[in-house]
């Protein structure tokens, strides 16, 4: 790298960030760390008490359950995600574009809705079967819900790789399969590690689906102890374990990624890779593709439509239209507020991390990820504690709930905005300065307009995750307020097997979930 480039990449007018910007970024980071700090620094906390709680006989099975789930679902998601990505990018399977869309859409089905529909379908088709409950059910349902997180980045990575590398391996005497294993697979490491990280964090945070499938993990236990069982000390002790697990998962991800960041390998490659001309085996692969779609999309749709049919069939007597309207309005309101809040709060962090890389930038960005890694239940508990102590007027208000959403989903906004900040390159800002605009006018006339599309994308993802969020909402919502997720949940409380009462909320959630999934699929296809 020449000198000219090295300072151009970091440099605008000064070599270090403006104080206002670093100050704002640090403030955001500190606020993001609040839930983690709460766990350890809360008064009444002692390591003796923690040890006592952790050595309780009920704790070890919870840890074991959680680990089993992480390993099984993680592995099966990697196998399924990478396998399907190879099928759609490297074989002559029919309609590859359609499959990319169909394999992305499960992202739009919230895991607790998915598990509910599986329970409902199982009840409908095999009323006496308990096949779907426990580890086995959780494994199947969560794999089908989460595999797209590996599938999508792997498709992008496979398309971005330079086909010449595999061609060279072939010319050196490797078979197709051997060349793929030796040359291509190692380069998918970043995509697989990134996807696995998201999946693991989802699994650690998942409450609704596991409650529904009657599989107890650390998170379900924390929620139970914090709410129904009313033993907050025990909840906090388990939450510490959960937080350690989350940080461990993030650290493991760094290890898996390795030292080199080969994420952008061959970004400008335009040549299409060789396709494997498969014979009869392609029909087998087609059958696998169809099976995956039937299980991941077909089952939820079947149960939802059947439930809706039952709903209409029952004459609509039980339709609580006012609750449906109320929960849709609340979901929209919270989603909008959290999206705007996260967008504004993310701005200093995304600006500083792209423009002024350094310790402050790195630490504030990582801090927001720590908060994201913590399950929603911890965020909720810490905010309840803080608000009751120091900000009582906030307690039991929708503002507190929105603050929780902002803390939890901030990294989604930051990640999206960083792309936009990078596009509004500092050379454009310098040109604006030379044409007579000061820093603020330059921000308003150049940086902001160029950043806006990316920031809007981030805002959409925040809003949609808010719409699907269950645990935090259950714990923090003001009394009497419902979102679509909590309204659906309240029709069941994890007990009722029939999907009829839940169907309207399920339909609404699946429809709004399909939006980001479609956006993602289209982006992947464009890449």
């Amino acid at each position: 790298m020449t000198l000219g480039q090295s300072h151009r990449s970091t440099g605008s007018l000064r070599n270090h960030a403006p104080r206002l910007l670093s100050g704002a970024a640090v403030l955001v980071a500190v606020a993001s760390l609040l839930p983690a700090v709460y766990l350890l620094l809360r008064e009444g906390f002692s390591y003796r008490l923690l040890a006592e709680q952790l050595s309780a006989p009920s704790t070890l099975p919870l840890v074991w359950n959680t680990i089993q789930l992480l390993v099984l679902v993680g592995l099966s998601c990697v196998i399924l995600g990478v396998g399907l990505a190879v099928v759609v990018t490297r074989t002559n399977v029919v309609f590859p574009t359609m499959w990319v869309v169909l394999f992305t859409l499960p992202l739009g089905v919230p895991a607790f809705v998915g598990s509910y529909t599986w329970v409902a379908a199982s009840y409908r088709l095999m009323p006496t079967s308990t096949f779907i409950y426990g580890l086995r059910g959780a494994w199947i349902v969560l794999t089908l819900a989460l595999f797209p997180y590996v599938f999508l980045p792997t498709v992008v990575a496979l398309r971005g790789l330079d086909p010449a590398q595999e061609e060279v391996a072939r010319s050196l005497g490797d078979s197709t399969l051997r060349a793929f294993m030796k040359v291509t697979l190692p380069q998918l490491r970043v995509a697989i590690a990134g996807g696995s990280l998201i999946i693991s964090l989802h699994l650690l945070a998942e409450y609704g689906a596991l409650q529904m499938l009657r599989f107890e993990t650390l998170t379900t236990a924390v929620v139970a102890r914090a709410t129904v069982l009313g033993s907050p000390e025990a909840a906090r002790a388990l939450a510490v374990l959960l937080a350690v697990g989350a940080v461990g998962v993030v650290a493991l991800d760094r290890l898996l990624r390795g030292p080199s960041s080969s994420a952008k390998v061959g970004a400008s490659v335009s040549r299409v890779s060789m396709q494997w001309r498969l014979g009869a085996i392609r029909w087998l692969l087609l059958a696998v593709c169809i099976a995956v779609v039937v299980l991941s999309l077909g089952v939820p749709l079947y149960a939802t439509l059947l439930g809706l049919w039952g709903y209409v069939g029952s004459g609509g007597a039980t339709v609580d239209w006012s609750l449906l309207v109320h929960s849709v309005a609340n979901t929209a309101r919270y989603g909008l507020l959290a999206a705007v809040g996260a967008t504004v709060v993310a701005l200093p962090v995304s600006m500083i991390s792209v423009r002024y890389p350094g310790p402050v930038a790195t630490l504030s960005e990582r801090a927001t990820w720590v908060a994201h890694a913590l399950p929603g239940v911890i965020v909720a508990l810490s905010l309840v504690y803080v608000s009751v102590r120091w900000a009582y007027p906030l307690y039991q208000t929708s503002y507190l709930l929105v603050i929780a959403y902002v803390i939890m989903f901030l990294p989604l906004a930051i990640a999206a905005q960083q792309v936009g900040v990078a596009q509004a390159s500092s050379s454009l800002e310098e040109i604006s300065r030379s044409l007579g605009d000061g820093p603020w006018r330059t921000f308003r006339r150049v940086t902001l307009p160029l950043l806006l599309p990316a920031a809007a994308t981030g805002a959409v993802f925040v809003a949609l995750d808010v719409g699907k969020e269950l645990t935090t909402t259950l714990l923090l919502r003001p009394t009497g307020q419902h979102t679509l997720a909590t309204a659906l949940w309240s029709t069941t409380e994890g007990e009722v097997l029939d999907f009829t009462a839940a169907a309207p909320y399920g339909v609404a959630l699946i429809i709004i979930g399909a939006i980001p999934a479609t956006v993602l699929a289209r982006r992947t296809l464009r890449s």
Partner: protein
Amino acid sequence: MLRVENLSKRYVTAGGPVDALREVDLVVESGSFTVVLGASGSGKTTLLRVIAGFEVPDSGVVTLDDKVLTGPSTFIAPEHRNVGIVAQDGALFPHLNVHDNIAYGLRAKRTGGRWRRHSTQPDQRVEELLALVGLEGYGNRSPNELSGGQQQRVALARALAPGPGLLLMDEPFSALDAGLRVSVREEVRDLLAGLNTTVVLVTHDQNEALSMADHVVIMRDGQVIQAGRPDELYHRPADLSTAEFLGTAVVLPAKVLVGSGASGSVEVECALGAIIVTDVQEVGVRESARLMIRPEHLMVSPVGSSGEGAEGTVGAVNYYGHDGTARVELDGSQQEMTIRVKGSELPKPGERVRVSLSPDADVRLM
């Protein structure tokens, strides 16, 4: 007039500190076209960025028309310098069309701390500038609908719009392909000559420097090596690497037979015979010296013809159409020299030739 005095800037990189600028002095006359020429890493871009106000130097002073822009206790923000800049890739604002790109600096013109609109109406001014760069009717296009050359011309119009006291250009033609580069270069030079704008252009392309500049400044390792008219620098380079940077150079070992006196000329002995070299700094009789000759100042003639010079055998030849070069190895030496001749007079490989200096040859003692 732009005056740069004693400018230094050091970067701390992973591989240790790097001196991007070392005590750089520079004077650019008003209305002149100055080209700063240097390889990548020579500090030329840093110099430009310091003048623009994008970098703060460790020490040194930059003044424009007697106003201090950067000094020990002064730093004028880029927006108050009245210095326009054309970036390497054009850096057009992608969210604005051509018209709004050019008009960008017109609304924000600031004098005496107060905002005012440009004296002429912005729209009218934009039309003038579009006409100036030959892009009438392109106002509504978006930047990505323009070719590279058109983008550079819009970038130039945008920088000129507020009427800058100084125009900086950072390798503005390097992104263009070879054929286009020459024609856009000529257009831009003629256009700027008509406006009497003071221009500082940095480039690593010696053809660009020699063909465009009134004044060339050569930089290496953060230092100014030499400054002067293009022909001065080409024929009288300060040292061998400058000579080779500006074009092909033939270097011959030589002996100084008679040292320079008041006349400023010396007599030297080299493979081509005894030569008088003029305009030499004080130098005494020396056994080992080097002569620098440009290939076009050497001639080939058939062997046997009487005259000065030495005989040799032609090695590889390169034919370029209008001219060509031949590499000739002189008899009794390992010395190979490149000679530029008309395309029609190019000898064949293996041919025996006599090599001599052309009558107007400018020979430099290094």
